[in-house]
């Protein structure tokens, strides 16, 4: 079964990376996921300042705004989609993810099957 791991960064340092882990931590984790044969897809999102939001009103007008910027403390920093037998295994992989450290969190969501 496929699960998406949504990596929410907590506090970020000056360079935009999570404070509690290093680039090397991420490289190690990425290699582990791929070596385990469970990797389906995954991306790291570019810095939040590059984000743009689009909303379409009831009258069809399009409103484009800069952002969103986090009023919330956690922002989506990237994701993995992994294919594992059940939620416990998915949670184990989420727990090993550097993004789950400290003020960060990883939300695990099953991919709907149709």
């Amino acid at each position, binding site marked *: 079964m496929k699960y998406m791991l949504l990596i929410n960064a907590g506090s970020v340092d000056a360079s935009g990376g999570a404070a509690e882990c290093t680039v090397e931590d991420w490289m190690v984790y990425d290699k582990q996921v791929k070596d385990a044969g469970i990797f389906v897809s995954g991306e790291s999102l570019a810095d939040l300042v590059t984000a743009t939001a689009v909303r379409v009103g009831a009258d069809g007008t399009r409103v484009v705004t800069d952002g969103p910027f986090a009023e919330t403390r956690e922002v989506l920093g990237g994701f993995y989609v992994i294919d594992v*037998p059940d939620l*416990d295994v998915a949670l184990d992989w989420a727990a090993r993810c550097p993004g789950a450290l400290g003020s960060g969190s990883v939300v695990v969501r099953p991919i709907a*099957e149709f």
Partner: protein
Amino acid sequence: MVDERAAVAAVFREEHGRLLAALARRFGDLDLAEEAASEAVEAALAHWPEHGVPPNPGAWLMTTARRKAVDRLRRDRTYTARLAELKVEAERAEPPAPAQGMPDDRLQLFFTCAHPALAEEDRGALTLRCLAGLTTPEVARAYLVPVETMAKRITRAKRKIRDARIPFRVPDADELPARLPGVLQVLYSIFTEGYAASSGPHLQRLDLAEEAIRLTTVLARLLPDREVIGLRALMLLVHARRAARTTPEGMPVLLEHQDRGAWDRTMIEEGLALLPQALSGPPGRYGVQAAIAALHDEAADITTTDWPQIVALYDVLHVLVPSPIIAMNRAAAIAMRDGPAEGLSLLDDLAGEPRLRHHHPYLAARADLLARLGRRHEAIAAYELALNHAATEPDRALLQSRLDALKD
């Protein structure tokens, strides 16, 4: 017909958890498991009166329920993929379950119902529904919420188990220390809701406490872990006092005024017999609490109670569980050992704890110590404050009577 119905009911009550657990484990879907289980019972009601109750009714129900589940999967198109995955075709050809040694899957179900991925409030409800076999209206009554609300909560929890694929499995030995406390917490919270209802007209809900003991007994048999046994001992040693804990009118009776002759000696003996096993090895929170309960149960009255040892056990417990509630109980025990002034000063140290600010046992304990110190006006004010935060009618009535006594 009446006899067969009674026979089915008896078998079903005994086998329900086991049946449901085995089906849930096989099919990964609690709804399907429940439907198949009840269809099997209907089949039994139709079949047994004519052909007699089979020699192994549990195995008969299991085989029938498995067939019903497979039929249901076939009929339901959304399950087509699931069906292929489960390779249930092979299942059809399987011989009926052997008469002896039917596997017991209830242990997996305990861990699934208490899975940390489920909302905390849903875990107890699901445990009562699936392992104790209570109906949704009964579970709703247990938690004093509308049936509709409870039905929604149970449906949501069951959907999450199925759709997010929370596995039916016993955690590996290395994960067990992290997962078992969650299961014990669920059972303990069912028990405490029965021991001291958080709201409503009654102080005790004996059926709920008894269900918690029954489930803990099943768990202890399946997983004879030190803390599981400790929890069972704790429940027995506390539940033994049930008859003395309320007056015939339902008013609470404090430990110091309880008729100790009304305590259930058989249950106390049973609890005491479990203590050596519960206390072997490093101390656990339930084992230590059971030891405290045992000291109360063994004492002839409040003055001959071994307070120094109770305080020592609370010291240990407070290290294991550094909660303000434990600290409050420790302070009350110290008041008994060293006098009300010492106890009060410790209680006052806890005044800043957010969890205690509106906690009526804390407020009442403080009022009680003030009264014992003869600080009448402060005691009256403290009782009035406690009264404002008491959750049940009987608690309010007791506080009111103490308040009235002070005002006279």
